[in-house]
């Protein structure tokens, strides 16, 4: 019988999870079948009327069994018992019947008959209005929880597995009447009633369904674009003692402010990326494991890659394809926080295998995604052209400096080369005057007149050298060839000036093979040879006499001058044939820096050349190689 009644009740379309509703309602409920046996009740009912049984123990027992215990609470026990027995017989719905209780407080009572297809199926009794009064001494957890939920600012709703609302707190539905009305309704019904967008209701229901199916909490973000608001809605599954999922609690968090910040941050990041793509510097950002997270478009130009996304996720060193310990070290100091900013120069090959000089700056990066960690921000600026310009400029400055030094050396040289013969001339003239006054004879004064003549010749030769330079530089030198015996020609020059030289040493001439005649410009060749021989003597004072080797081969002949002199420092070798240049180890040995330049020029005029071998502090060999 009872079983039949329960089945009947279940056909009344009550929510499946009736127990939970009864427990969550916040009112004391008693449901009876048509014979007034207890079908359902709740803990609140048992607590309210101080019954010693649990709500399930009451089931199938006639309600009248408990009437004497229940009526104990009422001032007018008989009136209550009469009301409780007689009301169902009348079959009229009663709302908010007020009772005065023995403790001086009040209680409201509802009664409703249950009909199905116009047939009476049972009775529902609801006792309410006691939250703040009657249950003071009772541990009504549901009531306390509900009250507590109302005080929470987050919208909270409880749904059964049919997606019907069992409870909604004040933050969910502010209006009290609506909040009562909403119970048992679906969100779609509620949204339809409120004229709210159905898609939001559908989306929320999908989320709740997901929790029911997955039996675990789910999160869903609800954005309301018009209000610029955003909610994080979390659904928690609720299980009963048998671990059966009975309901779902949905809690909403207003994360609008957080979302705004995130949006701003996202915009800032986008702006940064846009900016990074517009600058003439490669910008690379990595995560904490130095995997590339962002690289701007300029990287494509340098690397030749067509797609930046291919670079993402690669190690920074793999991407740059460099092994640079300095860069490693600097990145490490940034990652460990030992420094905030480091700079340096990096060399790498671009897509065309051209070596590029890149100036880099590495600093701590910034990552929106905290899990990825702050890596590094590396900027690379192509300074290849700048470095080349710098190098070119330095070269120009160096040349300018050398030119200035050369100019100073030239002026000093000219001054010295003129002052020395002038000194001889001047002093000789004064001596002559003194001697003539003293009545000295011709032989005695002759030496001084000769000195004057010699020095005038030297000065003239020097002036000719200077003029020669300007002629050579202007390309105005022509050669007059005449056929001479090479050995005789060389020997004559040696005899004239170097046999002996002013320090007494004599040059030795050694001839290899049969002497030959050659067509030479005698003036120019003599000039060249004198210059080479003077150097050999001048830079080997105190050493052995220079030796002249004359060699003849089929198509050319050579004249080599060998000395044991000071040699030429390696750094001076490239400039040795430059006009006015003098080797750095010549010290106070006088000279013009013209001789070798002139010798080279004449050798080339003769379609020959001049070469040399030298060893510092050991000596030099200068060789003229000339065609016949």
């Amino acid at each position, binding site marked *: 019988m009872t079983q039949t009644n329960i089945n009947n009740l279940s056909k009344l379309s009550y929510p499946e999870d009736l127990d939970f509703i009864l427990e969550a309602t916040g009112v004391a409920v008693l449901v009876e079948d048509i014979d007034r046996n207890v079908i359902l009740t709740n803990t609140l009912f048992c607590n309210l009327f101080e019954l010693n049984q649990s709500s399930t123990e009451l089931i199938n027992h006639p309600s009248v069994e408990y009437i004497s215990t229940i009526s104990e609470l009422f001032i007018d026990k008989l009136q209550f018992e009469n009301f409780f027995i007689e009301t169902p017989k009348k079959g009229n719905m009663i709302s908010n019947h007020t009772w005065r209780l023995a403790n001086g407080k009040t209680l409201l009572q509802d009664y409703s008959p249950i009909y199905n297809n116009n047939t009476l199926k049972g009775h529902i009794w609801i006792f309410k209005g006691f939250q703040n009064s009657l249950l003071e001494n009772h541990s009504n957890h549901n009531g306390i929880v509900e009250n507590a939920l109302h005080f929470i600012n987050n919208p909270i709703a409880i749904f059964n597995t049919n997606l019907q609302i069992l409870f909604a707190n004040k933050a969910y539905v502010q209006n009290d009447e609506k909040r009562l009305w909403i119970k048992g309704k679906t969100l779609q019904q509620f949204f339809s009633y409120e004229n709210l967008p159905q898609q939001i209701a559908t989306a929320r229901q999908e989320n709740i369904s997901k929790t029911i199916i997955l039996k675990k909490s789910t999160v869903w973000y609800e954005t309301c674009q018009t209000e610029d608001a955003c909610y994080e809605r979390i659904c928690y599954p609720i299980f009963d003692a048998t671990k059966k999922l009975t309901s779902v609690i949905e809690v909403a968090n207003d994360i609008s402010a957080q979302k705004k910040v995130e949006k701003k941050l996202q915009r800032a990041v986008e702006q940064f990326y846009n900016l990074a793509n517009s600058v003439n510097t490669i910008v690379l950002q990595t995560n904490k494991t130095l995997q590339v997270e962002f690289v701007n478009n300029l990287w494509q130009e340098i690397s030749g890659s067509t797609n930046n996304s291919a670079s993402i996720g690669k190690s920074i060193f793999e991407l740059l394809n460099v092994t640079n310990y300095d860069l490693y070290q600097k990145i490490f100091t940034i990652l460990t926080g030992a420094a905030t900013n480091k700079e340096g120069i990096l060399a790498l090959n671009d897509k065309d295998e051209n070596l590029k000089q890149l100036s880099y700056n590495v600093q701590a990066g910034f990552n929106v995604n905290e899990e990825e960690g702050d890596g590094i921000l590396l900027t690379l600026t192509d300074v290849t052209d700048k470095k080349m310009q710098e190098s070119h400029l330095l070269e120009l400055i160096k040349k300018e400096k050398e030119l200035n030094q050369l100019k100073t050396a030239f002026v000093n040289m000219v001054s010295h080369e003129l002052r*020395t013969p002038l*000194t001889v001339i001047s*002093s000789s003239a004064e001596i002559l005057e003194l001697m003539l006054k003293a009545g000295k004879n011709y032989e005695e004064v002759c030496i001084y007149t000769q000195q004057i003549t010699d020095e005038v010749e030297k000065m003239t030769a020097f002036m000719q050298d200077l003029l020669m330079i300007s002629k050579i530089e202007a390309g105005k030198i022509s050669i007059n060839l005449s056929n001479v015996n090479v050995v005789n020609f060389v020997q004559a020059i040696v005899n004239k000036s170097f046999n002996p030289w002013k320090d007494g040493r004599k040059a030795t001439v050694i001839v290899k093979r049969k002497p030959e005649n050659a067509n030479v410009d005698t003036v120019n060749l003599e000039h060249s040879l004198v210059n080479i021989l003077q150097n050999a003597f001048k830079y080997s004072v105190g050493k052995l006499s220079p030796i002249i080797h004359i060699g003849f081969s089929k198509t050319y002949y050579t004249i080599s001058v060998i000395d044991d002199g000071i040699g030429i420092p390696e750094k001076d070798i490239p400039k040795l044939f430059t006009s006015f240049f003098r080797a750095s180890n010549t010290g106070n040995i006088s000279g013009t820096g013209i001789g070798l330049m002139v010798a080279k020029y004449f050798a080339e005029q003769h379609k020959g050349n001049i070469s040399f071998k030298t060893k510092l502090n050991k000596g030099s060999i200068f060789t003229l190689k000339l065609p016949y």
Partner: protein
Amino acid sequence: MTNNQSTILVIEDEQSILNNICTILQISGFNSIKANNGIDALKILGEEKKPELIICDVMMPEMTGFDVLKSVLDNSETAHIPFCFLSARADVVDINYGLSLGAKAYITKPFLAKELIETVTELVTH
């Protein structure tokens, strides 16, 4: 000539100039000793009889006139001898440098015999 007893050491690598200086000194009544370079000069100064004055060129191989002066001043036996440069290096920088080293006079080439004798006379008399 009042100082005809004075002996002057002349250091010069250009033989003609060395001869002419000594001739002018001789005509003016001075004795002179010739040295072709600094090394020879220092050897002469090592001898017992010291000159009353040293006239020295600056630009010479192996040892410059400046180096010679430093060596002369470093030696207590020669440091008192008046030192006069006679050089083709006529730049004021060189003159100042020579005088700052301790030379009593700096005559530039080409020189006049009168100028040389006046300087020599003054240096040997004081």
